[in-house]
């Protein structure tokens, strides 16, 4: 997943733990291969190659697309997985700012309305590329936790680069103490909270960030303007699943400081927002 991953388990035996670890590794590798934004052999790359013609997708992909459709509706179009070309332009790997012409060209292949989605058939507009950032890593964390439970390991945490899915509380029933990353010093925790189950996800401008001439350009791009969002440095959300937490956090990032905070309050999910000056807001502030 291109980020440090960790698995904390409490199991009956080393063999038990290794069994769970192997299952997690295989699952994360499977999802990485299938939905990677970068790999040219991924399903997303193959869908981009087939853009213009309808393709029947598998049930898992269909479920992810349906989930993305709901997020698109909830964010009034700001969360848009069709923005793959745009997000690539603003990726740190480019090392330079995109030109206005490049942005305009990417925008022309972006937009949920340009995609035809009627389960199980998907047709991308020519030139369109999907980006499942904000969903797929979080989904992978939930899947990994589920696999651990299925393997009989009921206490533990899956950590995929700061997105956490709880397998279950410590074996004595106490919750895990988990840290929320500080956006400007990701090695340090901005806050610590206790979590028995569910998921915690953070969306921030510190990952895959393009820095040009001392200015930070978030990889989270508003598909309506084609430019990175400005506002929060990071948003962390706690929810029943890492998937929900990640989706809510990404949506809040996209909505910006004023609307994003209101959105999270209305959802009623515990959250911590940190703006670009390091000011914190949200009901998890006490944990900082």
């Amino acid at each position: 997943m291109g980020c440090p991953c960790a698995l904390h388990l409490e199991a009956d035996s080393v063999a038990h733990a290794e069994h769970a670890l192997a299952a997690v590794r295989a699952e994360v590798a499977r999802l990485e291969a299938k939905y990677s934004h970068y790999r040219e052999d991924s399903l997303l790359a193959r869908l981009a190659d087939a853009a213009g013609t309808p393709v029947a997708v598998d049930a898992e992909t269909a479920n992810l697309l349906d989930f993305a459709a709901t997020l698109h509706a909830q964010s009034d179009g700001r969360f848009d997985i069709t923005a793959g070309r745009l997000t690539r332009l603003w990726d740190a790997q480019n090392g330079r700012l995109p030109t206005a012409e490049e942005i305009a060209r990417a925008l022309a292949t972006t937009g949920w309305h340009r995609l035809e989605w009627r389960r199980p058939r998907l047709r991308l507009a020519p030139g369109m590329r999907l980006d499942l950032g904000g969903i797929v890593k979080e989904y992978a964390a939930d899947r990994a936790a589920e696999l651990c439970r299925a393997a009989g390991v009921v206490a533990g945490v899956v950590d995929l680069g700061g997105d956490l899915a709880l397998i279950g509380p410590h074996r004595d029933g106490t919750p895990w103490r988990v840290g929320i990353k500080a956006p400007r010093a990701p090695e340090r925790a901005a806050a610590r909270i206790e979590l028995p189950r569910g998921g915690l996800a953070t969306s921030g401008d510190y990952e895959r960030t393009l820095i040009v001439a001392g200015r930070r350009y978030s990889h989270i791009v508003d598909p309506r303007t084609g430019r990175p969002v400005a506002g929060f440095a990071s948003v962390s959300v706690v929810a029943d699943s890492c998937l929900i937490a990640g989706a809510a956090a990404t949506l809040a990032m996209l909505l910006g400081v004023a609307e994003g905070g209101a959105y999270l309050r209305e959802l009623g999910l515990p959250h911590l927002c940190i703006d670009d000056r390091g000011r914190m807001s949200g009901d998890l502030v006490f944990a900082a």
Partner: protein
Amino acid sequence: MSTRLRCAAILLWVAATALAVEPGTPAPDFALRPFDATSPVRLSDYRGKVVLVDFWASWCAPCRQSLPLYEQLRAGFAAEDFAILAVNLDEDAADARAFLAQHPVKYITLQNPQGDIARAFGLKGMPSSYLIDRDGVVRERHVGFEPADIDTLKREIAALIAQGRHAS
């Protein structure tokens, strides 16, 4: 072929070709009386909302599981443009009432002891549910019920609610 056997063959053929409501076709409208009210409820009154029409009966074993889960579904989507209309097909209303006393639900339960609405929908099994979009078009059909189906249904309902917002 004897007349009797020929009759049987014709009846079976008629049964096999009876029109069934498939996803993509408009849901047949109906007006049915609820258990707890006198004035009939029309499906078309719910145009603009996503509607789940569930055909059930007290004798249908999976309905013991489906009713409580549909009640959770109703509660989960209470704030949305979503409604459940349950069409009961018991011949004897007393059986249905006894079942509802055991498995109380807050969504609307309608009586269709003659089964003509079930026939209009061309039910293939019991229970059967039809997910109808805001324009009154059947989008999904589920025959039988298993607890895991509720997740599929939730996704489908969420997708239809999202689509409606889109169009508006």
